[in-house]
């Protein structure tokens, strides 16, 4: 660790060229809440850290003319959680960001870092998958976009290449009359990470469901969404039985739920069933109990 080089580029171009120069030997540093832990535990031994802290244009939150939300990668989770526009337009995202770790972590951790880290047991990824969010990425081959539903590949792995940089998280506006919520289930202490986290968007018009999007986080290696099941809900009048059935189907569809100290695979499937049902019931204004 003594010979670790700390680099602080001022522009995106500089950051990109430093990345290219160091190849896989450099690690990008956003808020550092994950990277510093990994360094401390010697799980990574990069030759250089490229800090994004001084790079112009990576800060801030904006809403464009079409009503889409643009979060720059260095916005902290605390900023996203507190932002009035996010709270009004995408409450699910604000709720998920407010659930991460504790206030000290949220002040330091960034949304971009959270996406790039792809920690299976974090809250924002599921929220952004349910919100049809996508990321903008720049690299030597130019700029590309990736839907978050396809961005996460597995434990701590994404489609980001070693020489690429995530420059923005974009979230389209919610469908009309949609409400959204993030329901985090912690099986151990109050500061634990989720055993399962359910991110749900639901729109109901004239008593019938017009849109439903549900992503289940922390249950599997990546956030899980089953559009075919979501489509089955559209057009239905939501009752406890229908929501229960949907939740059961969602739980059953999970491919290989994780088995760890927060819950066995079997328990995670059960908790997915319970929390998908609870999240949708709450959004549909149904009784939450069995």
């Amino acid at each position, binding site marked *: *660790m*003594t010979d670790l080089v700390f680099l602080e580029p001022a522009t995106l171009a500089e950051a990109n060229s430093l990345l290219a120069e160091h190849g896989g030997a450099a690690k990008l540093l956003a808020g550092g809440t994950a990277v510093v832990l990994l360094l401390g535990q010697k799980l990574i031994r990069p030759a250089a850290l490229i800090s994004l802290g001084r790079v112009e244009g990576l800060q801030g939150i904006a809403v464009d003319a079409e009503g889409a939300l643009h979060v720059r990668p260095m916005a902290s989770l605390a900023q996203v959680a507190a932002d009035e526009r996010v709270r009004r337009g995408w409450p699910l995202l604000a709720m998920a960001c407010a659930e991460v770790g504790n206030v000290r972590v949220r002040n330091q951790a960034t949304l971009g870092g959270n996406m790039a880290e792809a920690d299976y047991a974090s809250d924002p990824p599921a929220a952004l998958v349910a919100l049809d969010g996508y990321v903008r990425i720049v690299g030597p081959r130019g700029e590309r976009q990736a839907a978050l539903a396809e961005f996460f590949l597995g434990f701590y792995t994404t489609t980001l290449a070693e020489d690429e940089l995530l420059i923005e998280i974009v979230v389209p506006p919610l469908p009309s009359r949609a409400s959204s919520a993030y329901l985090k289930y912690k*099986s*151990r202490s*109050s500061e634990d*990470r989720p055993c399962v986290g359910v991110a749900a968007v639901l729109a109901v018009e004239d008593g019938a469901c017009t849109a439903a999007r549900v992503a289940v986080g922390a249950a599997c290696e990546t956030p899980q969404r089953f559009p075919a099941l979501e489509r089955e809900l559209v057009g239905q009048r939501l009752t406890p039985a229908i929501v229960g059935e949907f939740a059961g189907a969602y739980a059953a569809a999970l491919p290989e739920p994780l088995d760890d100290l927060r819950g066995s695979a079997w328990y995670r499937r059960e908790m997915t069933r*319970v929390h998908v049902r609870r999240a949708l019931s709450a959004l549909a204004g149904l009784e*939450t109990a*069995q």
Partner: protein
Amino acid sequence: MSPIGRDTPLLDARERVEGRLPYVLNLSLPGMLHAKVLRSSHPHARITRIDAAAAAHAPGVVAVLTGRELAEADSIQHLYGIGTRDQPILAVDKVRFVGEPVAAVAAETRDQAEAALDLIEVDYEALPSVDNEMAAVAPGAPILHDDVADNIVTHYKLRRGDVDAAFAASDLVLEETYTSPTAQQVTMEPHVSIAQFTDGRLTVHTASQSPYGVRRVLAEIFGLKPEEVRVIVGPLGGGYGAKAHVRLEPIAAALAWKTGGRPVKFVATRAEEFVIVTKHAVTIKIKSGVMRDGRLTAREVTSWWNTGAYADAGFMLTRGGMLRSIGPYRIPAVRADGYGVYTNRPPAAAFRGAMASQGAWAYESHMDSLAHALDMAPIELRRKNILREGDAWATGEIMHDAHYEECLDEALRLLDEGRPLARAEGSIRRGRGAAVMMKNPQAPSRSEARVVLRGDGRATVYTSTVEMGQGAHTALAQIAADRLGLPAHSMQVVGPDTDQTPFDQITSGSRSTHMMGNAVLRAAQAVADEVRELGRRRYEVELGEITLADGHLHTPDGQSVPYADLLNWAGVAQVEQRGEFKTEQNLDENHQGVTCSHWHQGAGACEVEVDIETGKLTVTRYAGTSWAGKVVNPVRARAQNQGNIIYGLGPTLCEEMVFDGGQVINANLADYLIPSILDIPLHLHTASLESKEKDADMEGIGEMTLPCVAPAVANALYDALGIRLRDLPLTAERIWRALHLEEVRHEHSREH
């Protein structure tokens, strides 16, 4: 007004808040080197080769040590331990747990020391391993130590009455088995020691609860006289038993022995904390005979304490565990056996409320099971059998100052037990539970103190009691101030430093206020007597007429003199006295006799909510009580009572070290969860119960509300759902699975 019984801020409160407290962790000495240790990756293996030659030539490296070198050094006794010398400073031929120190390096920087570890080559020949205490005592289990053929390193027994006959004559006999897992104390400050040899003397700055214990063991290891070892202890960032015995000191000192006089600092990482010391896992089989009216007739308790690869404090703790698994009840016939069992786990030692937590988990859950079997209210069953004044306990000793029922009553009152409870609401079910505990203080035991009234009229207490956040130094200052007629905040407390402060056994087991408090009281009383004598000579009044208050000596006719002036008048530079307090124990091999002069007593009662769809249990209300005799510092006593409950919620609900192939898989605080501030019950009430007598003794209250937490919560869970869990922790998934099984059984019985 006496400083005793008054809310008194910690003497070092300002330094704590301002970050100026001199923790050993922050101490740096001139020329100091940094230690790192290579640890075993095998739970049980022969070391067939170690090659550390390359590490010795690595940049910045000053000393490299292997177990072989220490074993072959004439001046070093490389094996140490409290009941048996079974633990090498560094493994020699064999490793016995994942994380056992195998080689050590001292270098100019920590990074250099760490880099050098990579250059040490170790070849292992794996041996079969065992990490569960019951598997370790089964026939054919792998043997850890050649001289302990059955892995049972120690066995203590208690025999009273004819247990078998009493069982035969009982209306009901119930046997259950309870377990609690290996856990970690998780002090905020990690273990840290700095050692230096100068002119044949060894000086150690260390974060230890036992300065004199460390001195004795280091003197034995290095063949020094105890006086040739100086142990200086700063304020601790938490102890909880984790620092009660020798930990990093032998390695730091062994490295220092090779550096030609340069000091060596060894700081444990958080991951290392989990392999340095743990809480005993235990399996407790408890069987009770009871008459239909609820009278207990007999009890048999067998406990297997998982001491890990080395006994550590396992001798006295197994004995404590055996005694602390019986319970505060009047039972005519008792048979108890406690076994200390070697396994391929990291060594286990005290964990706040040592062994009493594991014991109460078993006997207080069991009391509720017995009550349900008898169709009797659990509190009624306790009242029928609880120890009262003049009752004989399992050792045959007669109980004096027995306040168990009072503790229980007060806990129930604080919980407001009569309040109606909405038992079911949506997916939430609610229930209440209670528990009582007893714990024997360490005995025989001894504390000494020195109190000096200085020429400036203020006073200093010299004590080897360790301040670890519990407020002991403040309590001792209050006690001395009371006798000396000085304000508590004007007192200075010095120590521990074995060159300056007199002997004390240890700071643990809730003993300091009682043991050291009485030693300080005696020393301060002797100083006060001497000051009065000076006053008698100066003013020619009767001794009995003199009062000491506000730093002045007062005579009945209204004359008064500041202490500084009085000492000056008498030509005395200072008045210095020593005080000592000792306790005895007198038990035979069947543990019949007298354990101690007083008992630690406490109770707890709680209300829980369980979400039946997830199994998640929330403690919504908790009330804990402890018997204090006389409270020295009410605000700190309350903090201790509350802290115990919060600390106790961890092992109750989520704390458990999980092993895979002998390797701890959750040795970090993201995977090993301790309660956060949000887990504290919304309604948390505590009380330290006091005697009505003016001269009541000051009893320790550092642990008494802790052991009841797990059984009280489990009993409340049973009250809510009819589920009896016998394995800690009470995780959501465990409760969910039990609920699920109940449903299955219910379905099954309906079909038939």
